[in-house]
């Protein structure tokens, strides 16, 4: 088996840039959401379609990103 339909795209979630990486392995679509800087994984999800996997990843990433506090500098 191999990763097929590999795709990366950049989105914004509540002012935070996020990269969504998705691909299909067999019958399952996998999606990873990471914060662009530094690139740490926020969510790793799967689904029967790319859209389903991405929606789950976005929801989880949004939940985590909402916890990030910005300090005055």
């Amino acid at each position, binding site marked *: *088996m*191999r*990763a*097929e339909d*590999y795709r990366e795209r950049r989105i914004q979630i509540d002012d*935070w840039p996020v990269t969504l*990486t998705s*691909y299909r*392995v067999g019958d399952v679509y*996998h999606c*990873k959401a*990471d*914060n662009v*800087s*530094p*690139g*740490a*994984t*926020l969510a*790793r999800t*799967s689904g029967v379609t790319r859209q389903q996997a991405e929606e789950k990843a976005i929801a989880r*990433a949004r939940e*985590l*990103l909402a*916890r*990030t*506090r*910005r*300090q005055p*500098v």
Partner: protein
Amino acid sequence: MADYAHPEVLVSTEWVAQHRTDPNIVIAEVDVDTAAYNEGHIPGAIGWAWNTQLCDTVRRDILSKQQFEELMASSGISNDTTVILYGDNNNWFAAWAFWQMKIYGHKDVRIMNGGRKKWLAEGRELSTEIPQPKRATYKASDPDLSLRAFLPQVQVAMKERSAALVDVRSPQEFTGEILAPPGLPETCQRGGHIPGARNIPWGKACNEDGTFKSYEELKELYRSEGIDGSKPIIAYCRIGERSSHTWFVLKYLLGFNNVSNYDGSWTEWGNLVGAPIERGAAAVGA
């Protein structure tokens, strides 16, 4: 890859595809997200979890010599095995594993350029089978602590400007705007950076496909921030894995001799009572 100071420590995805079944080669995937390996990995690759297998799980520390020997032996690695490391996030924790393997003197360890991302993007073969390595015998060297910086050394370096401090976190972490990468738990009491540090985010060393930038690009990246190898260099981040990536770049791709990784990093410094902290952008000429 030929222009790097030590091109022998990097292999391409193509090389791995061709050599992955060679005898005397062990491939290990080390991910930030330890679930990634189970989705599918290079056939025959073992998986190491950075948070349970590449650190002491009781006290905050890297593996002891004995723990390291046990990990190698149980992974089927002997002293003369060629070990190929790769992982997600452009090899963050693969570099962390590489750093520990060099601390304990493993001779032939290499990183797959581009890591997991490039292997997936190229549509190369994957497997979900977990290999069962045949136990090997392994004798580690005493730890080479010149590769590792501890708090007292960093404090001296800050006070006396005797070493260049390279903070490889994101600009927002460096300035103190955020205390951890967006979405990750805050693990320090204060934000900012060690006074005098330069901010050169780790990711600047990578191309879009996850591979390392060329020797000339890397040299210019660090030179433009005053990092040219003329004095010792200490790299740090939040917990030491991103900085092991930069340590790898500085020591093996650019060939600077005196480079150490401060794995205590910001989770140590940013929690110290009374430690000096700078906030905002780096001072000009610092």
